[in-house]
């Protein structure tokens, strides 16, 4: 048996996710980061696309979770220097650099920084501001402890003298340690392209030319200007701003030929957020192709254009100059019709690309793994997380540029693979958490603590937070009220716990963002302070107040007061609810026998759990059966055959073909799914991997019924079979994608077309290939193939929606006409083959049935909708059900495999437990008044209520009895009961009525109501 521990390198979002999934799954984690804090780049971002979630807000709960997870050991200021041994039994050599401040002793009181006489550049704010030599990266840092920048420190001793807990250690030394782990996940992230290398853009010379990450800090409420977008040259409001895309991307001259995958979207996001900060600001994005290939990305671009007036200009910027007087920056660029134009801007943002971290080579040597020529970790399509050394995995941007959800999926995926690898060693090195006893507050009068969050400036810039706090103090039962910059930060959690103790609070109200994301965090905080977690209530004054009433601060403040009043009223009524534990059936059900489903099943089975794999057709393999080779030439069918063999032979896996799900009962931990073959599967977790299908063009669409008009998929087959024959091939992109019927990008078609074009060019030099596209979306390293195709003479012609190519039969011959913007007139081709790049569409009807059975949602396009687009890419809001592959959205094989492994990791979190805690907010019966009329029994969709004979107050009577395991807490019974004899704990009639009654209170009703 190997080690039950793993090493995770890098504390960015990928590393954090991997650490959490591993540790919750029973594996001890050492999380190392070279910086003094974890958080990575995501901690620097203001918002994330396409949900515009406040980045820190969604990251912070994870930071906090990681920081206080008893099975995650965070080791900061540390790098890996060597790795010995082999998978299962590695010895990792770590070098822990001196921090000069003792993490354990430091209380983050800030006095060292206040007294430090030395200034240093603040790297968290990208050099836009200064910090001291004694510093903390950002307020939500985990671990929350200061560090000393020894390069700047002059050793004056002021900080050591002032430090109350004597935490300063000037003589701190680098230390080498060795830890034993079974596997390694490397997630070192990326560096931004150093913009000064492209001197033509004036970065470093012109103060008003910024990088995108600098701009991000400028917009951030925690940034150098507290969220005001001001010109660095003179601190003036910015009226006109331009983004230049592909700075350090798609540029062979500077050895960055790959696409950085995320810049189109982040530039759009920055433009949208800038528009929110300053509605009158003019925003222009100069781009080559808009690569909005992700789920719902195109909708985001549309919103930027239509709702926020973002101007998109296709064209490469040729020259950047500065007016020395006004400090305006002028851009000279080539327009669509080839002419040059010049335009002046107050500020120019360079959308800098992503590249491997500078330390990547050193790290690769230490890990003993291979990198590609650009420094990205080498992986393969069919093992996207595995490096060249078995047992060492990679997640995040280290293997190719990628965005947050893909990094998260990869991280979970790597965790899944590690779980499989370490198998029975799991649960050997982890500790179990012991919470303090719950305080019995039943007899105490309510003492409510109210915490009002500024959320940086998300709330504070609209709602008058101090006024809300002062108001909260006047409300009945309020014993304490205060404001926080970030209520979700880890130091605030400690503060809340102290205040609960100090003021003997027995109810807590947090007035901040939405309970949908943050309630669990605060609930666990109050639980750690000894309060039952249900003695908690939130007032949503951000998503449903400050963000939607940005221009009405006074009314927003009034609304915030009302919401707080309601929350306090409800909180005052809340009662402690019992914790109910539910059993877990240690078996998984995977629906869909494509590559995603098989990968998920395989990973779970490897971790030692039974898995049932259900496939509706008579064969395994799904869409991968139609792929012959990958873009980089890997043999898809060989891989598929091997995977099918592995899955078929695994004794832990039972496969049902030609089978579908017909009935579902139960819930997380104990599902009971009836299959169409009559089989009943009891399982604890469910994975939906039902895939998607190829779009079938309508007969008149590009003459698709013509025998010489084929699909890209058929072209690939004919190239593989050798029956391809054509002198001119026209490929038409976006068939069934990015239109009114299917408004999303199918993601893979551009790359597919390029791949097939390259194959043609390699074998049939004379065959002309014309690709007609809208935006060529060969993101990431796929860009290399696009570049190669251009080199090989593939012709690329762009068209806009509405002026699609026209395909006709003229005198028996195929004709394709298209408007060539460059020369300004229509051109005509007479190909002997047309290949349509057909999109990927969801199987709406069957998805809908499954969605209803498992109570999970679909998006407008019929794909399954994950719990959170950014940070929960493979989860559903419904516990115990997970999602991967094309059922989620169009994607490539490697992405599907990463997701599939991720679902396995998530499912293993359930299967690894013996019991799971059930929701306490369930129906309760007042036995005294229940007359057993049975209305609640009828309206309960879960069969959770039955009528039983019971003896109540000395009388036998038939009354309703609730099955706590089946009750989902919808409250339909409570609203159906005439005599209130059944009620919903946590949302009782009294709770709700009290809340809205108090909403209607006038000032006169409250004044004079003192606190407790």
């Amino acid at each position, binding site marked *: 048996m190997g080690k039950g521990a793993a090493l995770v390198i890098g504390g960015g979002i990928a590393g954090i996710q991997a650490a959490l999934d591993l540790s919750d799954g029973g594996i001890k984690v050492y999380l190392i980061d070279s910086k003094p804090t974890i958080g990575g780049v995501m901690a620097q971002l203001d918002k994330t696309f396409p949900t515009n979630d406040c980045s820190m807000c969604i990251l912070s709960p994870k930071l906090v979770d990681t920081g206080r997870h008893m099975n995650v050991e965070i080791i900061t200021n540390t790098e890996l220097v060597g790795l010995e041994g082999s998978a299962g039994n590695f010895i990792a050599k770590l070098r822990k650099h001196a921090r000069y401040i003792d993490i354990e002793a430091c209380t983050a009181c800030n006095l060292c920084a206040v007294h430090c006489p030395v200034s240093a550049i603040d790297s968290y704010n990208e050099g836009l501001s200064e910090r001291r030599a004694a510093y903390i990266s950002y307020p939500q840092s985990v671990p929350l402890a200061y560090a000393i920048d020894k390069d700047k420190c002059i050793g004056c001793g002021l900080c050591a003298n002032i430090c109350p807990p004597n935490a300063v250690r000037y003589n701190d030394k680098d230390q080498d340690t060795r830890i034993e782990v079974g596997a390694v996940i490397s997630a070192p992230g990326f560096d931004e392209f150093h913009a000064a290398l492209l001197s033509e853009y004036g970065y470093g010379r012109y103060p008003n030319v910024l990088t995108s990450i600098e701009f991000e800090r400028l917009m951030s409420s925690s940034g150098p200007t507290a969220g005001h977008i001001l010109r660095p040259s003179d601190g003036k409001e910015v009226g006109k701003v331009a983004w230049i895309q592909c700075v350090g991307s798609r540029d062979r001259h500077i050895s960055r030929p790959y696409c950085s995958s995320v810049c189109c979207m982040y530039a759009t996001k920055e433009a949208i957020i800038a528009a929110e900060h300053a509605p009158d600001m003019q925003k222009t994005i100069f781009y080559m192709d808009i690569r909005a290939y992700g789920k719902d990305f195109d909708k985001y671009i549309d919103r930027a254009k239509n709702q926020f007036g973002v101007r998109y200009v296709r064209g490469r910027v040729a020259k950047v100059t500065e007016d020395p007087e006004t400090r305006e920056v002028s851009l000279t660029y080539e327009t669509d019709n080839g002419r040059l134009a010049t335009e002046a801007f107050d500020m120019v943002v360079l959308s800098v690309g992503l590249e491997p971290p500078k330390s990547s080579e050193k790290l690769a040597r230490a890990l003993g793994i291979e990198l590609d020529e650009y420094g990205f970790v080498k992986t393969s399509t069919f093992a996207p997380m595995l490096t060249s050394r078995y047992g060492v995995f990679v997640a995040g941007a280290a293997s190719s540029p990628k965005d947050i959800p893909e990094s998260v999926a990869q991280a979970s995926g790597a965790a899944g693979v590690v779980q499989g690898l370490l198998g029975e060693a799991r649960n050997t090195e982890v500790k179990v958490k012991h919470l303090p006893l719950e305080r019995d507050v039943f007899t105490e009068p309510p003492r409510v603590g109210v915490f009002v969050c500024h959320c940086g400036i998300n709330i504070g810039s609209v709602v008058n937070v101090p006024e809300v706090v002062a108001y909260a103090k006047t409300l*009945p039962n309020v014993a304490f009220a205060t404001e926080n910059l970030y209520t979700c930060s880890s130091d605030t959690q400690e503060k809340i716990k102290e205040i609960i103790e100090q003021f003997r609070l027995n109810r807590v109200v947090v007035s901040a963002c939405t309970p949908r994301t943050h309630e669990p965090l605060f609930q666990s905080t109050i639980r750690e302070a000894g309060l039952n977690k249900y003695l908690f209530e939130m007032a949503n004054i951000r998503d449903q107040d400050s963000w939607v009433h940005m221009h009405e601060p006074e009314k927003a403040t009034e609304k915030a007061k009302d919401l707080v009043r309601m929350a306090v009223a409800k909180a005052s009524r809340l009662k402690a609810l019992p914790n109910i534990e539910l059993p877990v059936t240690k078996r998984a059900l995977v629906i869909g026998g494509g590559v995603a489903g098989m990968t998920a099943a395989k990973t779970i089975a490897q971790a030692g759990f039974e898995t049932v794999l259900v496939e509706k057709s008579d064969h395994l393999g799904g869409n991968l059966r139609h792929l012959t080779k990958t873009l980089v030439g890997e043999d898809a069918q060989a891989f598929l055959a091997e995977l099918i063999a592995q899955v078929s032979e695994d004794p832990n896996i039972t496969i049902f073909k030609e089978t579908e799900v017909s009935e579902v009962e139960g819930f997380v931990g104990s599902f009971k799914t009836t299959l169409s073959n009559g089989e009943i599967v009891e399982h604890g977790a469910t994975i939906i991997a039902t895939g998607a299908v190829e779009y079938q063009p309508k007969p008149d669409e590009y003459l698709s019924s013509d025998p010489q008009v084929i699909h890209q998929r058929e072209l690939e087959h004919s190239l593989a079979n050798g029956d391809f024959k054509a002198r001119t091939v026209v490929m038409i992109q976006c068939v069934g994608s990015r239109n009114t019927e299917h408004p999303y990008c199918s993601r893979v078609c551009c790359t597919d077309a390029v791949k097939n074009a390259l194959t043609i060019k390699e074998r049939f030099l004379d065959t002309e290939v014309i690709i007609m596209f809208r935006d060529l979306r060969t993101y990431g390293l796929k860009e290399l193939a696009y570049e190669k195709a251009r080199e090989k003479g593939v012709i690329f012609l762009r068209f806009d929606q509405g002026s699609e190519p026209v395909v006709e039969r003229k005198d028996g011959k195929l004709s394709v006409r298209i408007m060539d913007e460059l020369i300004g007139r229509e051109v005509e081709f007479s190909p002997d083959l047309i290949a349509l790049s057909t999109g990927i569409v969801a199987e709406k009807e069957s998805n809908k049935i499954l969605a209803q059975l498992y109570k999970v949602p679909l998006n407008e396009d019929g794909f399954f909708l994950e719990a959170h687009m950014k940070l929960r890419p493979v989860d559903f809001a419904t516990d115990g059900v997970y999602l991967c592959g094309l059922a989620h959205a169009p994607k490539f094989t490697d992405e599907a495999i990463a997701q599939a492994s991720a679902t396995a990791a998530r499912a293993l979190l359930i299967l690894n437990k013996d019991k799971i805690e059930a929701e306490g907010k369930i129906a309760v019966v007042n036995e*005294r008044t229940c007359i057993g009329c049975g209305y609640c029994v009828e309206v309960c969709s879960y069969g959770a209520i039955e009528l039983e004979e019971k003896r109540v*107050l000395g009388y036998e009577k038939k009354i309703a009895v609730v099955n706590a395991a089946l009750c989902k807490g919808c409250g339909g019974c409570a609203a159906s009961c005439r005599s209130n004899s059944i009620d919903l704990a946590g949302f009782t009639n009294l709770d709700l009525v009290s809340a809205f*009654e*108090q909403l209607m*209170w006038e000032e*006169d*009703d*409250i*004044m*004079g*109501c*003192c606190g407790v």
Partner: protein
Amino acid sequence: MIKLNELRQLYDHLSRNTPRNTPIIGLKKEGNRYYYRPLKSYDEWSSDVLLGNFSPKEVFFPQDEVLFYFKAQKLIESKEEIKPAVLWGVRPCDIAGIGELERMFNQIEYKDPYFMERFDKTLIVGMACTEPWPGCFCTSVEGSPYESKGADIFIYPIEDGYLIETPSKKGEAAIEGLDVEEVSDVSQLEADRRRAEDKIKKYNFEGIADKLKSMVDSNFWDWIHNPCIGCGTCAFVCPSCHCFDINDSSRGARGLRSRQWDSCLFEGYTLETSGHNPRPSGSQRWRQRLMHKFSYFPQVFGSYQCLGCGRCGRACPVNINIAEIAAKAVEWVEPQS
């Protein structure tokens, strides 16, 4: 005693000789029922109706009455100022009912200031019943259709007018200045009284107080309860039922305390916060009702707490007649089980 040809004379005198805005409250038709309401004029008075559908108790003891208001810790007296009133044309049973209420609300240790202020400020003008109604049984409960006790002014209708008696000083003062002849021969009243009393059905309630005491565990209570649906009609129309419930109504720091009529037949009458109810069954609640009126009250105050107006029987949705029940109790022989 004085004699009037027209009762209007007395009415007008009272309305002229009382402070401005003093209401004269008498039976008045509203919808198709009769209530004690301030009369706008003598003509509004429904002089032929002996008994309103509801008793005059609400004049002294309103169904819903604010006791005081509060804000935070501060109390504010009820804002309503109680003004003098004249209660016009009340029948002897109802006057007796008012008397029973006064006994309850005017005890040595506990005085109800709300009731008492109204009581003290009200001039009660009673009137004899020459034609009692079916269902009346005042004579069985020590009353009489010609009983003037409890009234300040009492009217005896006679063939050619009205004789006016003033049993109280307050009444005497009130008719001062009424320029009419004093009559000394009132002997015909005795005959009138007998004639009226004879029209009333007489029940035998003899020994009922003691009999009831012996019937605590009797099946009798199930027998009465059987048809009863447990509504509050009988108690609400009764001139002497005085149970009330106290409730607070608040909104934040502000609020009020008020009281409302209650009924011993309500299921929640004795319900305790714990959910325990000492009188969980209708039979037990009926036992309370009957014993209160015919046993406990006579023991404590020496008179029945039922005045024989018969309103409850007329109003009861299932036609339960308390006189029949009381009479049945007197005769009750426990069935051999």
